[in-house]
């Protein structure tokens, strides 16, 4: 199959150059990339289908520790694909994948994947790994997430990743609804210096202040959070006595 595809590509390449690529090149534009096809089927020269690991809707795979990427910030996706390809974020699975994507393919994938819908709740097949966490760990995780542990120099995760860990801008990705194993692996990667510390080396500094219990608790807590902000909670009762 692989051979046939390769042969077909070789056989049709000159014709394509003649019919399609020439005008595109003349205008300085590369041939268009179909991101949806890459997601579903791979790019045909080294990158397999994204859905093979990240799940049919790219909502992640808890058992494998593969992250949800649907709805992820486009600039963040591009930055991570670049880091995975150049090895500043070391990952044996993603290295060959990211390396075989062209710059245009990365850009198109980032735009396409970032626009995919994020459901209010993850399918049960995705959010496993949560039930194993103890109530005590979840409670410790909630505290780390919302308050941090400042005497140990730990900000609350939400202070940068947004309320409920929904993610903020291009630099602070969502934690909500990510597989616990994925979060654990990333914190371990920063501790072991196999993932560059990111902007300001912030995550390297923070991960290195976390104990194994902190890591497990934060991961379990965020894995259990809905990936989209909950509908507005009951309004606060404002203070202020009426004169």
């Amino acid at each position, binding site marked *: 199959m692989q051979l046939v595809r390769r042969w077909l590509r070789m056989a049709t390449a000159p014709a394509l150059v003649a019919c399609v690529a020439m005008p595109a090149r003349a205008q300085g534009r590369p041939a268009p990339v179909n991101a949806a096809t890459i997601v579903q089927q791979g790019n045909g020269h080294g990158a397999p289908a994204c859905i093979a690991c990240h799940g049919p809707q790219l909502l992640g795979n808890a058992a494998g520790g593969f992250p949800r990427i649907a709805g992820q910030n486009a600039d963040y996706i591009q930055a991570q694909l670049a880091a995975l390809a150049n090895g500043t974020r070391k990952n044996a699975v993603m290295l060959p994948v990211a390396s075989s994507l062209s710059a245009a393919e990365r850009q198109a994938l980032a735009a396409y994947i970032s626009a995919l819908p994020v459901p209010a709740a993850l399918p049960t097949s995705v959010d496993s790994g949560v039930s194993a966490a103890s109530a005590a760990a979840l409670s410790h995780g909630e505290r780390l997430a919302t308050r941090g542990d*400042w005497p*140990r120099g730990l900000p609350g995760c939400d202070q940068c990743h947004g309320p409920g860990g929904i993610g903020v801008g291009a630099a602070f990705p969502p934690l909500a609804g990510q597989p616990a194993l994925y979060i654990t692996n990333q914190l371990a990667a920063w501790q072991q210096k196999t993932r560059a510390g990111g902007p300001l080396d*912030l995550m390297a*500094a923070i991960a290195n202040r976390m104990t194994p219990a902190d890591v497990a608790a934060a991961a379990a807590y965020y894995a259990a959070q809905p990936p989209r902000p909950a509908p507005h909670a009951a309004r*606060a009762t404002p203070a202020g006595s009426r004169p």
Partner: protein
Amino acid sequence: MKTGSAIALAVAVGVATGVLSHRFTRAHTASPATPAAAPAHAPAAFSPPPDSAMPNDEFGKMVRLGRQIFRHTGQYAPRYTGNSLTCENCHIDGGRLAHSAPLWAAYVSYPAYRSKNGHVNTFQERMQGCFRFSMNGKAPPLGDSALVALESYAYWLATGAGVNTKLDGRGYPALPRPAQAPDYARGGQVFAQRCALCHGTDGQGQRAADAQVFPPLWGPNSYNWGAGMAGIDKAAGFIKANMPLGLGGTLSDQEAWDVAMFVDGHERPQDPRFAGSVEQTRQRYHDSANSNYGKTVNGVLLGAHAVPAGGSTRNAPPPR
């Protein structure tokens, strides 16, 4: 790369000089892991009680309300809050963190004479100033439930602290004057490299969903010209001890002064004590090297283009 190694160096220096917090040392010995030290300050002698120790009674309810106002100010005290800041933006960890103007140290320092208004202030009057200036809003009347709640929270955090004592970790650290005069252009470079990630290149912070995650540092949604943080020395001390969030203590003193000069070198809401003209207001309230009000910075006469003080509280319906 350069930034990364600068942080690594600063952290290394912090460890070498032994500035490990007492609490951290304890956590460290109790855990099999070897987490790296936070770039912490000298240990504060006082520790407030944990939230889990809040009493479950009528007083505890008021303490909890105080904590909510402190952390979600616009949501819980909307009648008095004119901008999108919260108390916690400048008093980190819900007012618990040493060197971040902790509430427990403030509580035991009042009543006190303040040169800012020339008389002895109670703790509630001091907090009225926070709402009027830092929150660019309106002072709650003395005895208002917002002030009672915040006072209860501060009082409870100060459990066991001595009245009228100067506790270690109070206020923000006073930085020695820098070798070079604070400079707007150098500060702008520090801002771009170390602050814009969270606060945005335009200084307006970042929002997610309904929440202001990173606060705006200038412009109509920030603190007004009368706020303590509009003083370059105060801002420099806060920044040095606490910024970037989670990396406190990593900027040099010079960088902290320069970036404070930059942040406080932008227009923000008018000083609510406005005395008829920018010049007179400077003379009366800002006659100091630590204020840029009434000075021309980066080609702008600061104070001359300020939006009126009060922010969203200006449009609020009158009290019923």
